[in-house]
């Protein structure tokens, strides 16, 4: 259920951006979520539909984009797409890898209705 508290943070940011740009309403909100972020897109979506009511983002569509888990091997330099619980190099099986993608939890953009 931490998706609800995340939504609170998200909505706070969106409302501030809308106010700063004198927006009448928010059209859409684009969020990027990696599989290793610990956030479930479906739960975030339903939490957001509850929390947006009565705000400038009431009509906003929440666009969720997911990213695959990609690791870079420190030994052989290979980039591999892997499962969340197996962050090993596909080429040499090394566990000396660094995550390139998959842990994102980012508010990417907000589409605002600014027309008079």
């Amino acid at each position, binding site marked *: 259920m931490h998706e609800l508290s995340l939504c609170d*943070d998200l909505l706070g*940011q969106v409302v501030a951006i809308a106010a700063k740009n004198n927006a009448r309403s928010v059209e859409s909100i684009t969020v990027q979520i990696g599989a290793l972020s610990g956030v479930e897109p479906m739960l975030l979506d339903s939490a957001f539909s509850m929390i947006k009511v009565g705000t400038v983002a009431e009509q906003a569509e929440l666009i969720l984009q997911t990213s695959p888990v990609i690791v870079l091997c420190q030994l052989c330099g290979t980039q591999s797409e892997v499962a969340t619980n197996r962050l090993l190099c596909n080429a040499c099986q090394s566990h000396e890898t660094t*995550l390139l993608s998959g842990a994102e939890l980012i508010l990417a953009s907000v589409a605002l209705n600014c027309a008079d």
Partner: protein
Amino acid sequence: MCNTCGCNITPGNRPLVMAEKPKNGVTTVSVLQNLLSQNNHQAEHNRAHFDAQKVLVINLMSSPGSGKTALLEATIKRLRESLKIAVIEGDLETENDTKRIQAQGVPAYQITTGTACHLDAHLVHNALHHIALDDLDLLFIENVGNLVCPASFDLGHHRNVVLLSVTEGDDKPAKYPVMFRAADLMLISKTDLLPYLDDFSPARAEQNLHNLANDAPVIEFSSKDGKGMDAWIDWLHAEIEHYRALLLDKQTQRPKVQQDGQLLHAQPGKTKFYPVSNKAAYNNDVKHA
């Protein structure tokens, strides 16, 4: 977020940095800010407090009943003569754990979260008003027993310690990768029960941790018979020493998962994002390991 410059630009989101043109009166504002930026901002504030007082702060996480409080009781018994320790307890209900810690003669403050499944930086900040940080060496934050949510929230602490009790099964790191990837130390607890559990292998648990590209040390211990306590106490002393050296160097210590940002910045890649609704495109495109 990128720790190198705070720009939030990673290979994954780089294409989205391009500004979009307004159409039909709709203007798209590029934000690229971490969803948890309010929490993270508070966490940095907490960490600055801790660093000003030179207190090493350890976030203890595990499932409920894996022995966090018992570990703290045993640790305080060993260290209370040589180190000044305090504890912040997070629980949904009751002050039972706080009473157990206070019985050991150290200050403890209870955060009762009600229905919330994790502590966040704001809750910890409020708790700090009830704990005197000056003269403290070590502050433990016993998080809510939960292997999912607490992993996502920076509290401003310096080290993550994740407990795995032998009754839970050695596959927990594979089942809860977000949590165990964040561990700076994994403690295998209740090892006094190992003779009765033929299906728990500490080696397999460690392998599952390493499969998450996490080379954190693993210590097997039992609060009951005291086995492994020396290794744990040694680890704590080494961490305190390392932390103080960092402070002298005007640096701070950060828990594990936040460190990926720097390399992200140096290695621009070609990550594609997929709409959640379009699972088919994702499955076609992505070859799973």
